[in-house]
């Protein structure tokens, strides 16, 4: 009797499922987005989700957002499920999703898989797998110019102000190192003799560590702070100490109304729109013309600077517009090799090549320095600059390990 009960229950479940399967029709193109955390609790994912929804409205596609997908095999399951249920493009937002996106791409050759911040697309040579990033180093350089103007004004008002700034950094990886070097070079373009202390928190999000690091940098003599980490720790500490600060991922004027100057962020909409349009224009999704590595800049709208805070130096807005125009037309290069030195020597392939072990495995003979500047984000979209240049002091982690 028990078995009869079971069989009939199963049959009923199957019948109800089959009956509903028949009615499904949606004309809009489906596009998937895989996020590591819920957008409500992470500013990083929020930046992806909000741009995604905006692009969906603009281009009229159907946004299918899957949140809370860990950087593990679950990601492949979700990516495959999105592809199976009709998504023509699947995006993923976190570095650790990459391996699983590649696996899903191999199983679904007719669907495009695009991964932000990843590094393996060039080596995989799959027609339907792509990496994307933005030339955020240009945004940080410009933010550095804003900081430099302020530092110059502070020095002009009080000759005893030191030319020393501080940087709260997440992890000692290329993405972070490229970021703080470009920021430093931006400041240096205004105040030639500036030096910068860097302290790591070893986490993308650790409010306490970020606050501690900012305080330590200020105690060490830094008169201005910038950051690359995701919490409000650093700007809060700066507001308390009345130290001007530059942030990342969007304006932090809400927590530091008196001291906030400017913030840079990546806007992912141009990338979403580029990919979706490419797929729409192609006769079938697998034939869409998308490069293995896509890197957007000011021109595409991928790199954005927030509104300036109220404590910036006079004339900053004009200076920003002038430098931005030069960056856009290519007459100014952020990593101009005549503007910095490495261990007292001029930058060369020998002292500048990214570490293959730590950063990425590029072909031998790749020229990173050509035409007088370091070619950031050209051989792959994710940053590769991972050398400590003169003028920047690495003070190590805020929580040193024994």
């Amino acid at each position, binding site marked *: 009797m028990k078995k009869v009960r*079971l069989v009939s229950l*199963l049959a009923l479940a199957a019948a109800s499922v089959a009956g509903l399967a028949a*009615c499904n029709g949606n004309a809009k193109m489906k596009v998937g987005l895989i996020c590591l955390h819920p957008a409500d609790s992470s500013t990083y994912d929020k930046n992806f989700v909000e741009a995604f929804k905006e692009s969906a409205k603009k281009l009229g596609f159907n946004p299918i957002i899957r949140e809370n997908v860990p950087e593990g*095999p679950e990601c492949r399951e979700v990516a495959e499920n999105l592809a199976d249920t009709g998504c023509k493009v699947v995006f993923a937002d976190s570095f650790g999703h990459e391996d699983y996106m590649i696996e899903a791409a191999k199983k679904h050759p007719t669907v495009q898989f695009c991964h932000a911040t990843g590094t393996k697309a060039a080596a995989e040579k799959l027609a339907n797998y792509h990496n994307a990033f933005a030339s955020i180093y240009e945004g940080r350089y410009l933010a550095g110019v804003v900081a430099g103007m302020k530092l110059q004004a502070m020095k002009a008002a009080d000759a005893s102000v030191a030319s020393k700034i501080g940087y709260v950094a997440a992890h000692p990886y290329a993405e972070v190192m490229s970021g703080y070097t470009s920021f430093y070079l931006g400041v240096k373009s205004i105040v030639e003799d500036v030096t910068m202390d860097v302290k790591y928190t070893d986490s993308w999000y650790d409010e306490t560590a970020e606050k501690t690091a900012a305080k330590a940098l200020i105690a060490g003599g830094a008169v201005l702070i910038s950051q690359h980490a995701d919490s409000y720790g650093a700007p809060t500490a700066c507001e308390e100490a009345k130290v001007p600060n530059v942030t990342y991922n969007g304006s932090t004027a809400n927590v530091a109304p008196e001291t906030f100057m400017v913030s840079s962020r990546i806007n992912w909409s141009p990338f979403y729109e580029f990919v979706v349009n490419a797929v729409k224009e192609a006769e079938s999704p697998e034939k869409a013309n998308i490069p293995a590595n896509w890197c957007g800049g000011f021109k595409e709208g991928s790199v954005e600077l927030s509104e300036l805070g109220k404590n910036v130096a006079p004339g900053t807005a004009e200076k920003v517009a002038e430098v931005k125009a030069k960056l856009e037309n290519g007459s100014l290069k952020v990593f101009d090799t005549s503007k910095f030195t490495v261990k007292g020597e001029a930058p060369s392939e020998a002292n500048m090549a990214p570490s293959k072990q730590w950063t990425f495995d590029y072909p031998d003979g790749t020229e990173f320095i050509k035409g007088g500047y370091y070619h950031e984000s050209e051989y792959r979209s994710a940053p590769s600059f991972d050398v400590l240049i003169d003028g920047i002091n690495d003070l190590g982690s805020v929580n040193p390990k024994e």
Partner: protein
Amino acid sequence: MPELAQKQKVKKVRNPLFHIARRNEVPTWFVFVVKLSFILGALLLCGIISFLVSPITLDEMPEKFISYYIFVVEGTFFNMNTAFSTLWNASLLLIIAAAITPAFKMKFWNIGAEGQVLMGCFGAAIVMKFIAPSIPNFLALILMLVLALIFAAAWAAIPAIFKAFFNTNETLFTLMMNYIAIGLVAAFSLKFKATGSTALGVLNAGTHAGWMPEIFGSSYLIGIFVIINLVVALWFYLKYSKHGYEIAVLNGSVRTAEYVGINVKVVTIRTMILCGAVCGIAGFLLVSGSSHTVSETVVGGRGFTAVMISWLGHFNPLEMVLYSVLNAIITVGSSNAAANLQYSGEVANVLSGLFFLLILTSEFFTNFRIRFNLRQFFKSKNEPPMSEGQTPKAEGGKQ
């Protein structure tokens, strides 16, 4: 205190509104009707909540009233791939639920399946990373299975030995073993992961060494086939084998078991090793068939969900089939509905939790009878107050 005495005097005693009594004979049709109505009720509730939380308007989606069901089906049985994936998720849950059942049947509350499966995954992944690339694939798969069996069986045997010889609490012991397993895997990933990455990543992505071969384009089918056979074997083992009988006697009473000459220590340890071994097979199938790596989250809570499935299935591996399939459909389907109907993935988790809470509630109604005595209840209200001396006694007696 004359006032107080006055108050006590007028206090009325009511007959209870309803009585709860255990059902003795439960007809099959009745269980069927109750379960079915609860499943349908739970589906209806999920559909209503989904409808209410979705920001999509009826203009944009005229079929919004039934959209939850459409997307649940779409996410799970849209085509062959999704169907295989759903069956695979259900099978994994089923085999883990079946694995812990022999232990549950002898009242050994093993809630360490998560850790036992994870240790199986760990063993398989070690072979996959270090040995598989240099040996033929079938040999690699066999070695992975062997190490998975050893790791997982050991993880189950340790608490069983402590229980048998020192009478330690197996629930706490097996629970804590989960966290040790998670710690071990985390340490392993940290040691061998690529720099800048947060996880081990896919192993042997280029060579597919140690990967389960695909048939009909799916790497799940061999695993599903193995699991179906194992579940039938476990059902047979519990129902017809001598070991199964011993477990059943232990379930009744340990002293009876001792009296008839069953060695309780041996049966406890042997049964737990069996549990661990089956969990090891589950871990092996998970790593070779779908995850192709190990991470702290690779088992994904299935070891805990399996406890619920085992209970819902009344410790009958065949009955667990239904609940495993339902679980796979509702969890994956709700996530798909959440993504398509533009509400948070957290809501999808709430929906699947609610679904199974209601199914669990149905157990109450099949096991117990509720008898309402409305007439008595209301009648008692109008009865004159009890005579003095009776009231305090009755009150005291109740407490």
